[in-house]
């Protein structure tokens, strides 16, 4: 549904939220009526460690302009250790994206607890601003340009 052709750039943002902390934090942002742009769409996963780098790459490839992963704070993981693995995996993935020349600011990890509705909303606002400034993500969609 194309709303308005001339409107400003509206980024597509995919947010992965763990079921136990960040998804609840996002709900809390909602029940506290804290505003953030509608560009963010949340995918619920059991734990930040469920997020496969493939999902993030897939999102970019399909046209996402930014991907953010939210999980419980380190030490508070519902599954005790999940976010520690996620932290290493994402660090590796992000550094590789950076290495390939893709703006690292399009990817982000943020730890949001179930009580941090405000942090969730603030993070989303901030992230969307960052991505907006970067503009549309072209690089990842056609990294392998066929000659």
């Amino acid at each position, binding site marked *: 549904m194309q709303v308005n052709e001339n409107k400003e750039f509206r980024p597509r943002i995919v947010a992965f939220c763990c079921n136990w902390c960040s998804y609840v934090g996002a709900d809390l942002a909602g029940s506290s009526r804290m505003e953030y742009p509608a560009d963010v769409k949340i995918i619920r996963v059991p734990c930040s460690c469920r997020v496969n*780098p*493939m999902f993030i*790459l*897939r999102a970019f*490839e399909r046209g996402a302009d930014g991907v953010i992963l939210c999980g419980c704070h*380190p*030490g508070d993981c519902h599954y005790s*250790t999940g976010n*520690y*693995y996620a*932290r*290493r*995996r*994402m*660090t*590796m*993935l*992000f*550094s*590789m*994206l*950076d*290495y*390939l*020349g*893709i*703006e*690292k*600011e399009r*990817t*982000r*990890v943020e730890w949001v607890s179930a009580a941090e509705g405000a942090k969730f909303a603030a993070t989303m606002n901030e992230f969307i601003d960052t991505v907006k400034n970067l503009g549309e993500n072209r*690089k*990842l*969609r*056609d*990294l*392998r*340009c*066929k*000659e």
Partner: protein
Amino acid sequence: MQRIVDKINELFANGTVDRVLGWKVGEFSYDRTPYVFTKEGGLDGFAYDSFCANNLSKYLIAESRKEGKVLVLLKPCDTYSYNQLVAENRIKTENVYTVSIPCKGKVDVEKLKAMGMTGITDIVENGEELTVTTLYGDEKVNRCDVLCEKCLACQKTAKECDEAIEGEAYEKPHKDRFATVEELEAMSPEERFAFWRKELSKCIRCNACRNVCPACSYIKCVFDNDNSGIASKANTDEFQENMFHIIRAFHVAGRCTDCGECSRVCPQGIPLHLLNRKFIKEINELYGEYQAGDNTESRGPLTSFTKEDCEPSIVYEKGGK
């Protein structure tokens, strides 16, 4: 080489091993093909010289599942791949007899060709000098000028094997294995993007890198798995086209021993090892020095953690410009 042959014959004779995984002279005089020699068949065509670059460890996945004991010749760098494969339960060690052999770096014939030598019919190795016979005459080159990329930065010493055959002292080239990675890191994102775009666009998705990689030792991997959401073999979906190499590098991160085979076999000359080395460098810097295949017990850096690990945002802080 003679000592290797003697050792094999000795082990054949006393019944220690039934087969030998080694190299055989191939179609061209400088071709060396991995080959399984049997006690019965003897060592006809066996060779070990500057052209035996193949890492044989991966062949053990299949060979060690066969009956009888197989002797494998492992260059220092290959011993790491072997350990890593053992750590991942890919090799039935009870059927394997490992022999570490000396290595003075292997010659990359492609480099000779790049020097303008075409129509090569024969290459004779004489100490540090190679005599290349081509259809257009003989040329001499220094061996050290045409070593494989992977050998230029190799500082590996052989890990423990059932038997070790020592060679003469060899001064390894001292190329810093992270030098090129650092050069790339120093570039602007645009330059880096341009670099990789140029390189990766050459990929014909022949899967040679994957087939040769000892860390890609899986019977099936995500690319063969219909349920992974990204399965494919050829250029059917843009996704793995774009991301095949990133995912491959990610899957071998923490497991890659930096054997360099991927780049060596790439028919398009894509410097794939630079992806792996980037991960190795990051792992070393962020989580402490780690050498995959150093032993068969330790957990890989991506299947372990410390509570004090850095946050992914470190990439913003330290990453390139």
